């Protein structure tokens, strides 16, 4: 197999990796905010549930969580999991990354001085207006470095989809490497992750810079 055929064969896997990455971000970025806000709920029970959720997600391997999402419905309810592979993968990724994003958001929200809330309150903003107009923009600026870290990790973590035998770039690399007795597929996969992250880093740096106009 020539290098060119390898790259062409693996390119479908690259698209799959990008698909996992995009869907996970689209789900986890907003869902993380929901979890962060629930963790600041007035109700003890809600706070306790959310804390337990975050502990379990952070305390177990993502690979194990993916396996649980995939096989769980069959073992627990006897469901047919024929078409469940991709949804399970995305659910696993979103739930895992939401927990991490939630903690980043929470840290950001708690770092905003109480005086900002008080000034907004005295000026007659409603709690929702205060959060959306005053608090959230400042939170986003503060958490950008931590979020960038997480997003870069996500690019590399898409390779864990191989544990559900999902044909993304790393799974394909393993297959081709085995059949062709060659290490080259891994070099191609490595290059793919590096280039993808280079692009991600570039974009996120631009976003971070766009918020440089204030301190």
């Amino acid at each position, binding site marked *: 197999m020539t290098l060119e055929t390898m790259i062409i064969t693996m390119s479908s896997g690259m698209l799959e990796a990008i698909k996992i990455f995009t869907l996970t971000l689209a789900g986890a970025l907003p869902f993380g905010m929901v979890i962060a806000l629930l963790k600041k709920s007035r109700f003890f029970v809600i706070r306790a549930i959310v804390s337990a959720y975050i502990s379990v997600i952070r305390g177990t391997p993502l690979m194990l969580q993916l396996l649980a999402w995939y096989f769980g419905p069959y073992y627990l309810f006897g469901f047919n999991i024929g078409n469940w592979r991709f949804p399970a993968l995305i659910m696993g990724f979103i739930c895992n990354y939401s927990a991490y994003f939630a903690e980043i958001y929470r840290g950001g929200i708690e770092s905003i001085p109480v005086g900002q809330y008080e*000034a907004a309150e*005295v*000026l*007659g903003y409603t709690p929702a207006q205060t959060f959306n*107009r005053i608090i959230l923009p*400042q939170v986003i600026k503060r958490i950008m470095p931590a979020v960038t870290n997480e997003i870069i990790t996500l690019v590399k973590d898409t390779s864990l989809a191989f544990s559900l035998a999902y044909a993304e770039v790393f799974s394909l690399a393993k297959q081709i490497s085995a059949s062709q007795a060659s290490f080259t597929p891994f070099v191609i996969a490595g290059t793919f992750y590096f280039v993808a992250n280079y692009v991600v880093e570039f974009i996120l740096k631009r976003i971070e810079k766009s918020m440089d106009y*204030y301190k």
Partner: protein
Amino acid sequence: MILQMNNIQKQFDGLEVLKDISFGVDSGEVVSIIGPSGSGKSTLLRCATFLETIDGGEIQYMGEKAVHTDESGRTVYVNQKELRRFRSYYGLVFQQFNLFPHYSILRNLIDAPMVTQHRSREEATETAMDLLTKMGIADKADAYPFQLSGGQQQRVAIARALAMKPEILFFDEPTSALDPELTGEVLKVIRQLAEENMTMVVVTHEMAFAKAVSNRVLFMAGGVVVEQGTPEQVFDNPQEERTKQFLRVFER
């Protein structure tokens, strides 16, 4: 009466910070509240501005009750929507300015009037530019708070409060976070407002300023108003031993 507070009680974890304080402010009056740290003067302002909830007593703005204690001894506030209406009666200037760092100076002044009072951008901007001119910082309209000195930031904070067209303006130690050389420019602005008969309550440690600007001075200690009167009465002829003792510290 613009503000009337009756029998205000406030505790923090069982510690009585305000013990049955009553005090009112008339239109055009400038009232200074002085006293040692921990005397409850800032807490009184924070109760008046609903940043703290009172444990007993009554607060009225423009003759309307915002909170009262009923027969059973429960302290009842009006609902959140009503409270926001009461908030339009007053403005508060904080010790730490608390400007919104992500908004330009102009935006700091026009955002709340537009969002919470539904004024047009044109009207809000006109009011804001007039205020900035008056504060001597019209050239900073497009700057961001971090680019300004402490004194300039505090003048923006005063302008932001005035942009809401309040009936009364509260100041919580407005110069305590400033270098001595910057306090002058802030005090000058407050003095100017006093000359225009703006109704104000100022918690301050600037005795000379309190004496020169106020119509009335309250001396607070240990959660009660120990003594009050004209600046001449309180500063030059204090009746209470606690007041004399406090003022002696400043004479030294």
